[in-house]
């Protein structure tokens, strides 16, 4: 049965983020007044934090996952970590845990157990800063993702299949990435195909479409290209989606969002990365 491999230190899995850092990502989400690049960076930093915390034990962080964050924009296609992980393409989770670029302190209100709230300080590490400049070399970015995944699968042929999450607001400026997306989708471990999320976001978030099983409502060829490039959500992810969204997705639902606001980006990441069978 596909997608049943245990994720362990001996058999880790991996998450790859491919993030559009082109100039248009500096537009602000109308709903929250924050630049899309900043909201996406916050979201990815928060995801990394939560994953590290989840895999942390008293003696350190267990390498159940390896992580890659690839950015594409003015500087071409390159690893997007900053600080101690600058230029690192793929890092085990423990290395990520121990090398944030900086750690900010934030206050958080938590329950005091007696119906009230108390303020507590939490540490908020940052690995990845917002960047928004230049064009949108999406084809090259997917070529890089293919290289990373090919190498990973050669070294981990039986792993729980990697998940690739692509977040963008614009159209490719270096040619059609469809072939690279199709190739990426077709890569597989013995436990199943990798899962590619195409998450399109927009400042106004008008007419959002998410996790649809049909291309009928898509407005244009560009949307169709992202839809076709996205994987069909495996059953276990549709179950996760049910928990996250509270409603059932049709069989054939795609790992695809069009015109999403930041909440839909977060939802897609949650559906794509909720862990399974950690050992």
């Amino acid at each position: 049965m596909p997608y049943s491999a245990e994720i362990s230190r001996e058999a880790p899995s991996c998450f790859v983020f491919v993030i559009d850092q082109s100039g248009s990502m500096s537009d602000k989400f109308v709903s929250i007044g924050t630049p899309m690049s900043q909201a996406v960076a916050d979201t990815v930093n928060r995801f990394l934090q939560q994953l590290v915390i989840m895999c942390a034990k008293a003696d350190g962080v267990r390498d159940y996952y390896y992580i890659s964050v690839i950015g594409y924009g003015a500087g071409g296609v390159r690893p997007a970590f900053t600080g101690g992980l600058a230029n690192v393409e793929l890092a085990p989770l423990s290395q990520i845990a121990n090398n944030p670029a900086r750690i900010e302190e934030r206050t958080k209100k938590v329950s005091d157990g007696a119906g009230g709230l108390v303020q507590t300080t939490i540490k908020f590490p940052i690995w990845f800063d917002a960047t928004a400049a230049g064009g949108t070399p999406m084809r090259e970015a997917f070529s890089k993702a293919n290289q990373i995944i090919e190498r990973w699968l050669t070294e981990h042929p039986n792993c729980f299949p990697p998940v690739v999450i692509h977040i963008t607001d614009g159209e490719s400026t270096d040619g059609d990435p469809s072939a690279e997306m199709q190739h990426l989708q077709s890569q597989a471990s013995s436990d199943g195909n990798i899962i590619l999320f195409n998450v399109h976001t927009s400042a106004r978030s008008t007419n959002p479409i998410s996790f649809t099983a049909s291309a009928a409502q898509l407005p244009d060829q560009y949307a169709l290209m992202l839809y076709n490039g996205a994987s069909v959500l495996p059953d276990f992810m549709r179950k996760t989606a049910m928990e996250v969204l509270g409603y059932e997705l049709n069989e054939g639902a795609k790992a695809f969002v069009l015109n999403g606001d930041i909440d839909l980006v977060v939802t897609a990441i949650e559906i794509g990365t909720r862990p399974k069978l950690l050992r």
Partner: protein
Amino acid sequence: MLQCHYWVATVPKKGSTEEENEDFYFADHSAESEGIPSVKFALSDGATESAFSGIWAEYLVINFEKHSFDKTLELAIADWNRETQKQELPWYLHNKILDGAHATFLGVELNLVEHQANVVAVGDTNFFQIRDNFLIKAFPVDEPSGFNNQPNLLASVTTQQTPLDEIKYESKNLALNAGDTLILATDALAHWLLIRCTKDNKPWSTLIEMTQSDDFEQQFVNWLMQTRQDKAIKNDDTTLIIIKLTDGLSKG
């Protein structure tokens, strides 16, 4: 009055070291002495998802030796807080311990004079009572579907605790007979037992037979490795305590 004999084995999940085994148990050292009026056993399974859950499980079973369940919980929380606050923690542990550690707990007190047992159990670490080769009690989980990835757990931070008054976690005054066998098992093994019970296989026989061996622990390890390899049991930290009750010699 009854006398008890017991056997224990604990094995980490495949891929983990002995030190990473987060199952902890307590077995009364004097349990096998003649004329002991009551004995205690405890077993706790620290949750993989939380940090410092091994020491949480350990403090729970240690405190149960001398205290009631309520007092055990109170003392273990204090011990856990002291332990986790004595050192400067990296950012991820600083954040993670705000949610506390979690563990199952099974505590068994046998009154050998009155032939009775009190069992307290939170989560899916399970108690089984076998009499005349029949399973007469499985607690708190009594069917295979009761094992899922979200068992009730004891939390080291009170704000994270599932309200205990919403679950049935005590079974009091269970009658004990000479000849009864009690089995305490963490979830993987308890699940294995209950699945096979539904097929009328009397699966406990396999485990009880191992007590005939001079090296019970090794027998259990060998069996567990093979059963894991056959994918018939979940790869998880696994602990087994078998307690046999016999007629004790009456003291003059």
